């Protein structure tokens, strides 16, 4: 039976379970809901979950295992050189393609079941080709035999799978049905499942981190095998070159990252906070309904557009102020690409991160807090600054952190706005670049993957990861200290 149908049947069983569980709980107390431990619907859910979860788990496990087992049993038939795992994989793919093709042919009625079983190897390619199933080359008798074997066992496997899943589903249902009585704590059991689901969701974050660390660490180690760590961490020049002998010091990149992020935050945080305060405390509802989504659009504009904006508009404008022949008559700026350019534009992009989120949090501060302050003769702005903002602080810090994170992680704007040159300089009008931008460029560049020039991307990623981790610990500590909890 196709998996889809199996799932549908299990779902139907779950629905039946819901109704049955509900019904049984009700009838066990003669319809007097009050004597039940939980609401009838919880008994229903309980039964439904019992019918659903074990069966689905089994289904998933089977789906993962069956191909593995089948492959193992089919492989010997191919008489291939076992030392070549890749070739084996390819051959198996061919086997499966033939098998699937034959199945499809039977399904669509182009071939009878017997016809498919008795087909000759030399006919296969033509026959299947006629149905739009392309095969790379002619089918060898071995492959065909393997494919037939494969088909046969896949068939059996499918029957077993169907039986097992249905059994589990019905069994689970029966168990839940038996357990259903007035004393049974259905709500607790359903909520336990829900709780585990919540925990599982929270663990995804952990898994992601583990995954990131794992996917970076090996190449990082490889990099440090090729390039001395001390030069990486303390080197002050960044100039990769193809012929080797590159200097790959992280310091200029880190400095650029921090500098550009700082400029961006200097732009985004005040503007974002002011607009949040304006939106939540002063703006009319109509205004708010318009301005807030408008600001949010800023977050969604593709960063390449921001990059072009930096390159084509902001850079030249800054040039005309600070550059040669500019209105200030100074030549502080050598080119349109500068920390300032990227920072400004990035700041604009980050405004909604600060404003929208903070606005929601500020809005959630109870009115009675505001009343308390206004009632003492505080001005609205004093109220906001001294009562509302502190009460909303954890959320606002969260929003700012998010903005900062985004600033650190941004590439396009940096590449187009700040340039690609790694510089260690205090002048905000000079071109610099960031760790992230270099990760991208080293990873997608032309240096070959086992050279330090490409591997350095992993080391950069790892370093950045550790540094931001430190910054976040610090931020958490700050929030803990100043947290105010209202009632």
């Amino acid at each position, binding site marked *: 039976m196709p998996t889809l149908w199996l799932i549908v049947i299990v779902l139907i069983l779950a629905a039946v379970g819901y109704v049955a569980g509900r019904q049984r709980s009700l009838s066990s107390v003669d319809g007097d809901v009050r004597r039940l431990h939980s609401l009838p619907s919880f008994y229903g859910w309980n039964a439904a979950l019992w019918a659903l979860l074990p069966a689905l788990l089994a289904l998933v496990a089977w789906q993962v295992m069956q191909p593995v087992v089948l492959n193992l049993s089919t492989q010997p038939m191919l008489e291939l050189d076992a030392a070549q795992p890749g070739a084996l994989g390819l051959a198996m793919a061919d086997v499966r393609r033939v098998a699937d093709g034959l199945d499809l042919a039977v399904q669509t009625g182009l071939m009878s079941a017997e016809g498919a079983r008795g087909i000759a190897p030399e006919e296969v390619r033509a026959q299947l080709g006629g149905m739009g199933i392309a095969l790379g080359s002619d089918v060898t008798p071995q492959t065909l035999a393997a494919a037939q074997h494969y088909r046969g066992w896949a068939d059996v496997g499918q029957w077993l799978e169907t039986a097992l899943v249905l059994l589990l589903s019905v069994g689970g249902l029966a168990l839940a049905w038996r357990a259903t009585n007035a004393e049974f704590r259905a709500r607790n059991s359903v909520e336990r499942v829900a709780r585990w689901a919540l925990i599982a969701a929270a663990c995804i974050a952990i898994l992601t981190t583990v995954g990131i660390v794992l996917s970076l660490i090996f190449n990082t180690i490889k990099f440090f095998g090729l390039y001395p760590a001390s030069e990486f961490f303390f080197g002050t020049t960044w100039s990769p070159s193809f012929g080797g002998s590159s200097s790959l010091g992280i310091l200029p990149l880190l400095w650029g990252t921090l500098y550009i992020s700082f400029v961006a935050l200097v732009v985004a945080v005040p503007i974002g906070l002011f607009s949040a305060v304006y939106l939540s405390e002063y703006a009319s509802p109509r205004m708010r309904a318009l301005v807030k989504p408008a600001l949010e659009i800023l977050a969604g504009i593709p960063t390449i557009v921001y990059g072009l904006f930096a390159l084509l508009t902001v850079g030249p404008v800054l040039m005309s102020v600070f550059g040669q022949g500019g209105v200030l008559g100074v030549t502080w700026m050598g080119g349109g690409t500068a920390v300032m350019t990227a920072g400004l534009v990035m700041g604009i992009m980050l405004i909604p991160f600060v404003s929208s989120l903070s606005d929601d949090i500020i809005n959630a501060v*109870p009115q009675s807090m505001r009343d308390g302050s206004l009632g003492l003769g505080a001005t609205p702005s004093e109220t906001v600054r001294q009562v509302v903002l502190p009460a909303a602080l954890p959320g606002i810090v969260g929003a700012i952190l998010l903005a900062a994170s985004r600033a650190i992680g941004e590439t396009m704007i940096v590449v187009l706005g700040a340039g690609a040159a790694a510089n260690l300089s205090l002048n905000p009008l000079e071109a610099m670049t960031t760790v992230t931008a270099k990760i991208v460029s080293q990873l997608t560049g032309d240096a070959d993957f086992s050279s330090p020039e490409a591997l350095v991307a992993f080391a950069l990623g790892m370093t950045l990861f550790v540094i931001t981790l430190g910054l976040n610990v610090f931020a958490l500590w700050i929030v803990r200290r100043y947290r105010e909890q209202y009632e």
Partner: protein
Amino acid sequence: MYDAKLDERVTTMDDIKISARGVQVWYGDTHAIKDVDVDIADRTVTAFIGPSGCGKSTFLRCLNRMNDTIDSARVEGTILLDDENIYDKRVDPVQLRAKVGMVFQKPNPFPKSIYDNVAYGPRIHGLARNKAELDDIVEKALRRAALWNEAKDRLQAPGTGLSGGQQQRLCIARAVATEPEVLLMDEPCSALDPIATAQVEELIDELRENFSVVIVTHSMQQAARVSQRTAFFHLGNLVEYDVTDRIFTNPSDPRTESYISGRIG
């Protein structure tokens, strides 16, 4: 229906601090206050009594324009404070509220320390020149609100971690600390035990020497004890307003009488 229009005796009060005329309040379509005229005398305690939901808090909030913060609320009529219409465009509600302080019905301490709660008003109005003065102000306010003994060892603890009655006294202390000319108190003793209540009543009496106090209360005894004038509200109307003694001994409106004797609610 007969509405208590301004009584002779009341209009002849010598020193009128607040004078409200034709005040109407709507919440959306609900008519919460219906054409109320009241004069509140200086250096006097005025009590507002009336069944729950009759509009006492609403009217109180008109007096320092706290109704501005409720989106659906709409106020009509004139309210003169020291002969100036507080609903005039030129009046700054902030300054108004600094003059007319308020203790809310539900205690609403800031999520800050007890000290900062009380010091908040003095700080924003610059009442203290230095830390020591501020400490003094805080201590004095807490003492007057009968909270000093309980709070003195935990001034840095959050105000929200206090018991219900303690929070209420904290809010009183907070309002007193800014030294408003008029203090509006919405059921300031509802969560207080008799002794704390007596202390707060003492405070009110003390405040009366210099300021005027308006107090909403559900306790007739309290109204009789602390107030010189009493206004009785019913279903959004001001039914009767007179010197307290007369209200409690010889009310002129039958509704007042039945409320006081416990018959209508």
